[in-house]
């Protein structure tokens, strides 16, 4: 019986946390390590995204997909791409900039990627 009570008392003594003066500093250090981990993770994910984007872009361009899409759009008579090219070329771009259907599609892909990134950031923050 006495032994049991000693064990209870011992558990209570162990449960008493020592008063350490640098408790806030310790919390700060853990927070810094957490931040470092997030930064590394973001860099890795970002790096992988960029690498994937470059590889994907090269594949798309190398495969002539954009040229085929541009041709299809033109052939279909929609003229949408052509009109966009005309508007941008005449109003926004310097005369020397080689603007064509491929560049427009590529820009559209980049804009979509940026929007997707922005949406994921907003979702994570809120």
């Amino acid at each position: 019986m006495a032994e049991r009570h000693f064990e209870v008392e011992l558990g209570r003594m162990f449960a008493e946390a020592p008063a350490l003066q640098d408790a806030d500093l310790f919390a700060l250090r853990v927070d810094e390590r957490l931040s470092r981990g997030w930064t590394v993770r973001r860099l890795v994910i970002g790096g992988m995204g960029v690498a994937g984007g470059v590889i994907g872009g090269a594949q798309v361009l190398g495969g002539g997909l954009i040229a085929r899409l541009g041709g299809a759009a033109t052939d279909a008579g929609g003229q949408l791409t052509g009109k966009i090219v005309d508007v941008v070329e005449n109003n926004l771009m310097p005369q020397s900039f080689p603007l064509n259907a491929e560049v427009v599609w590529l820009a559209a892909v980049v804009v979509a990627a940026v929007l997707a990134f922005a949406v994921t950031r907003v979702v994570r923050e809120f």
Partner: protein
Amino acid sequence: MAESGTGRASAHDLELVALTATGGRDAFGELIRRHGSAVRGLLRRMGADPALADDLAQDAFLAAFQQISDFRGEGTFQSWVKRIAARLYVRRWRREAKGQAVALLAMEEGVDAGEAQNDDRIDLDEALKSLSHVERLCVSLCYGAGLSHAEAAEALNAPLGTVKSHVKRGLDRLRRRLAPGRDFAPAEAEAHG
């Protein structure tokens, strides 16, 4: 912002855990402030020097952050992190002791400083110094981190009987140091609670 800080300070641990699980780093910071000293204290009592205790306590909180969704609220958050930290320390101790861990666990001799006199009762931290490292480890795992004898044996990779022996010898030594010539009668134990 200050208002949310005040809210966090008065929030229950479980609320802070729930906020942390949804990505609330500030809430986790509050948990660290609340329980950091207890975790560091346990590691020191297990035998870690202050620098190592701080490193392992940081590792334990980082692990807790990553595994926060595993915390079911069956015990307290503090006891959960203490268990993580205790296991980290045991793993470290076994790695550093390498082949000697088995031999150390098999050793029976501690540093028996004898029985303290009635008028020089000492605190737990001092009393723990009279135990061998392995006794200290076993007692701290069971009474500080809340592991069962079987869980402590598993963590130490030692036979259950060996761990029980170390705990018993450690308790005997601690009783002689902490409560010389006294019985812990119920009324007395309550008076301490």
